[in-house]
């Protein structure tokens, strides 16, 4: 059986972590994978912590439970680090990817002794400089693909461009910015 890559997203309601997980499922689907993308619905308040999940595999997926031992964790808001146990069950040979202006060295002490790879990306600055607004999910998507290598980078970018062309058919001017956001995040993500 092929390896299943499991990803857990931590975000705040309204920040687009659910959308990002669905986008990742989409692009992985286009590269021929079996995919699952699903949010864990809570009270659904703006700003409240929320969780979303991805499974990506070369084989058909039948399991229908949440993910307790993820390969990767993505945190779209670093203020969650003090309130949510983001590294719970995270595999040591995996990685955590955090949207923050801080460096991985500054973040590690907040992660309750997690020994695996710690990655950071300043999705806020990237988003504001490329899109003119704060949409952390596009840069975070680039960062997670870069770190996890869950699909070929070139293939990923080609499919994302196609998907943006479809999604923004009426706003083609934002496609370039979104592609830049993805690429910059892939270049700028730092790890220790």
């Amino acid at each position, binding site marked *: *059986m092929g390896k299943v890559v499991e990803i857990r997203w931590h975000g705040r309601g309204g920040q687009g972590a659910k959308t990002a997980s*669905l986008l990742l*499922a*989409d692009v992985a*689907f286009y590269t021929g994978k*079996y*995919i*699952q*993308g*699903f*949010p864990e*619905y809570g009270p659904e308040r703006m700003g409240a912590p929320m969780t979303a999940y991805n499974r990506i595999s070369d084989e*058909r*997926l*039948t*399991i*229908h*439970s*949440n993910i*307790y031992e993820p390969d990767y964790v993505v945190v779209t808001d670093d203020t969650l680090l003090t309130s949510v146990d983001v590294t719970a069950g995270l595999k040591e040979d995996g990685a955590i990817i955090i949207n923050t202006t801080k460096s991985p060295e500054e973040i590690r002490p907040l992660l309750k002794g997690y020994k695996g790879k710690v990655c950071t990306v300043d999705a806020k600055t990237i988003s504001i400089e490329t899109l003119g607004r704060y949409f952390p999910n596009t840069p975070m998507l680039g960062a997670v693909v870069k770190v996890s290598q869950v699909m070929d980078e070139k293939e990923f970018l080609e499919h994302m461009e196609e998907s943006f062309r479809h999604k923004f058919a009426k706003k083609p001017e934002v496609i370039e910015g979104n592609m830049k956001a993805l690429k910059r995040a892939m270049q700028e993500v730092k790890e220790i």
Partner: protein
Amino acid sequence: MAIRERMSGNEAVAFAMKQINPDVVAAFPITPSTEIPQYFSTYVSNGEVDTEFIAVESEHSAMSACIGAQAAGGRAMTATSANGLALMWECLYIAACSRLPIVMAVVNRTMSGPLNIHNDHSDSMGARDSGWIQLYSENNQEAYDNMLMAHRIAEHPSVMLPVMVCQDGFITSHAVENIELVEDDKVKAFVGEYNPVHYLLNRDNPISMGPLDHFTHTFEHKRQQAQAMMNAKNVILEVAREFEKLTGRKYGFFEEYRTEDAETVIVVLNSTAGTVKYVVDQMRKEGKKVGLIKPRVYRPFPVDEIASALSRFKAIAVMDKADSFNAAGGPLFTDVTSAMYAKSVFGPKVINYIYGLGGRDVRTDDIELVFNNLLKIVETGEVGSVYNYLGVRE
């Protein structure tokens, strides 16, 4: 050539409804089924279907409008969950006894209270005796496939009963997964036209619907309804055979997974069956003889077939995502054990687990615990507790 897509369970059901293009859809929103009428109303406003969409003010009205439309001679559909289904309560019985082949998507959610939007089967289990055929779906693919087969079953002249197609709220309704869709023209040809023999808007043969029946006729009508439910069994299999020719996907009353030499099996509905398959694969690697029976057709209940299938095993756990509050076991457990008793299947030890109420996540560890308990029963011959709660804090 099948169309490879990815969509959520709700989207899959709405897409099936678009391909079916019914005459009337009447619906009222309730989480987690809301997306179905939401997607469908988009198809209506985009002109992709020519359905009359009725945005009613309650689920009681939704089912009443479906009854009216279907009685008039049209094909009517709706979708609901939990308390929405409960608010349809009296109308469910009227639809079934009036022999109106309405098709409804039920996105399973726990019945209030306590107030909770998440999944269990307490809603559709409450409607199990309403006279509706009930089909259950493990994932988006099965929800879609069951929707495509539903009208063929419901509208068969020897059946003429409404069908509800159930899937797990959020777990599959809101999860995006791979799916294979059937082309529009093939769906159209497979589902076919609805040509009722008797209907209200037939000027050549005017009839009344729902008149006073009393003790002079009600009993006979109920007997005919019971016969229709018995007839449905063959029709369900015939339609499944035809569907297999169309898609290559095989359906029956229940699915057996790795049961050939199994000593212990879990019997469970809907999405948890997928998690059980995963655990079965893992435990098989360790040489444990475990398997799964996943009922698809719960009404009519395939008594003979399920009793015969289960007679081969040594220990069985029936898992219920609803309690009957009879202080003895859940509804699926009661049906399975009574089927076995009625068919003189006394060999296997059978236990019940109530699990996942109110959307409590069902982990692979939970399923392993159940199998390990079954394996212990086989080893020791001691059944222990029959009526159990799985994964609850107490």
